[in-house]
């Protein structure tokens, strides 16, 4: 029974090597990366991706819980009912009809946003003195960061029955118009809310235009139209594509705008999806409807990626 008492020096030496290995372990990029990125990745994984996955599983389930889960395709079948599809009774395609309506609205909104964005981004990016560019862009971005709910209903006092526009119309002796609670109001609201998503990426590519290019073309006698068509348009394509994608996706998923401005006849796809969760408690069907939308969104993103749209520029809100 002889216990070897290690000398103090021994312990110290061992502690030093232990500390050194520990430090090199903690100090390694791998661990640092794990410690710094790990929390965010797990938070996003558990709180973001898990709910999306749960929704996906539910869309194939018979009941609105995961216990007693039974696989079924009936919800997707209800969205794409075969009978009306084969007999061309398209009026019976309630959900697909609404989806088509939403996609059509998004298309209009995207086109209008694109047309509105070209002059302002070209002007700020190429015509305005360098010193004013950033302040002007800030002026575009600031309202963008304020409450979208407030920005949505700020159109009510303008469009309502006795609102600003009808007030002006009656003062000059014209008949008032029904503007609020119409598809037009939804379209205006969507363009208003989403315009900056188009302006920002488009401006990024406008600012990247080389003024010398344009001047050279003009010196060689090209008309403005030709300069626009042959220089500005092709070079700003990536920015425009990013804007188109973001505006389109956001408009297709719009719920607040059609609800507050569209009125009872202005409901769009998302209104029906929301009611599956909040009114009829048909979560499985709501989940299936959501994933039809997500599939469209992912298809658009995939196609855009293939075509080389610079999505990164629009990602920052």
């Amino acid at each position, binding site marked *: 029974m002889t216990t070897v008492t290690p000398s103090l020096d021994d312990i110290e030496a061992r502690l030093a090597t232990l500390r050194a290995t520990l430090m090199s372990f903690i*100090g390694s*990029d*791998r*661990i*640092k*990366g794990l*410690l*710094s*990125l*790990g*929390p*965010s*990745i797990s*938070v996003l994984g558990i*709180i973001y991706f898990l*709910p*999306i996955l*749960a*929704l996906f599983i539910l869309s194939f389930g018979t009941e609105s819980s*995961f216990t007693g889960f039974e696989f079924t395709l009936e919800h997707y079948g209800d969205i794409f009912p075969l009978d009306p599809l084969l007999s061309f009774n398209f009026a019976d395609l309630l959900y697909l009809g609404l989806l088509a309506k939403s996609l059509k609205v998004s298309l209009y909104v995207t086109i209008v946003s694109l047309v*509105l964005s070209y*002059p*302002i981004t070209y*002007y700020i990016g190429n*015509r305005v003195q360098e010193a004013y560019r950033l302040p002007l862009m*800030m002026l*575009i971005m*600031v309202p*963008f*960061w*304020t*409450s*979208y*709910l*407030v*920005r949505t*209903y700020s*159109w*009510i*006092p303008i469009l309502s029955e006795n609102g*600003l526009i009808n007030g002006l119309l009656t003062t000059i002796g014209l008949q008032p118009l029904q503007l609020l609670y119409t598809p037009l109001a939804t379209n205006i609201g969507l363009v208003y809310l989403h*315009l900056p998503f188009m302006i920002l990426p488009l401006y990024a590519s406008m600012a990247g235009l080389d003024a010398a290019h344009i001047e050279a073309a003009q010196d060689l006698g090209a008309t*403005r139209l030709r300069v626009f068509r042959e220089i500005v348009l092709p070079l700003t394509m990536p920015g425009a594509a990013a804007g188109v994608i973001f505006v389109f*996706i*956001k408009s*297709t*998923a719009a*719920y*607040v705008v059609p*609800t*507050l401005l569209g009125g009872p006849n202005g409901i769009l796809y998302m209104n029906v*999806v929301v009611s599956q*969760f909040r009114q009829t408690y048909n979560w499985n069907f709501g989940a299936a409807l959501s994933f039809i*939308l*997500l599939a469209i*969104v992912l298809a658009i*993103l995939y196609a855009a990626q293939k075509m080389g749209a610079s999505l*990164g520029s629009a*990602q*920052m809100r």
Partner: protein
Amino acid sequence: MTNNTYVDWGLRAATAGTFVFLYAPLFIIVLLSFQTGDTPLGFSLDYYQQLLDATSLLDALYLSFRIAIVVMVISTTLGILAGLGIVRYAWPRNTKAVLAFFSIPLTLPIIVYAFGLFVVTTYFAIPRGAIAIVLGHIVYVLPFAALVMVSGLQDFDSELEEAAMDLGADEFTTAREVTLPLLKPSILAAALFSFTLSFDEFLIAYFVGGKGDITLPMQIFTMVRRGISPTIYSISTLILVLSAGLAWIALQLERS
């Protein structure tokens, strides 16, 4: 040249028109918040006075404020760490994939996420209310905070850190005395963006908020659906001023 001046004037008019389009509705809300009784162009603080008695709005304002503070602290902290991880450390190797991972919540519609969170909170018996809203807002805000930090760190001059280390400072001291002060603008920007995003967020709160826990956007949504009451103009003006102010500061910080 006359043709060109026409084009220039056209561009100028279109730009001015777009600015009017962006600002007129907000300006009208502010104008209406100061109206007196029935005359739309008067000036009074009546609607602000009425706001003081609108307890449901004030309660909602207080709740939104508290949620936004909690979300801001958590998301900014996670965002700083994530930014450091993405820019500095070689793990994981594929930075592009990590950035894509963080961008997914920004790209996919938030409303679908709100459905998912709604379903999961029910299934795991997480009570609807403030805690569920905070959870939802953290993941909604975190990608913004992380990306603001990434862009801040990419412009960062790491030679200053090396100099501090060369002069004998250890990693901790360098982080505290050099890295953090230099990153302060980005951190503040991330925090302010996080606050406004959470403060103004509606869809997630609408789905996982409870009967007792009603945030300001939820309350405003209900009020607008029932028909506008005058206090909505005054509270909206306050919201606009607050979020526009914070966004302005944050954008300045981000660009500095």
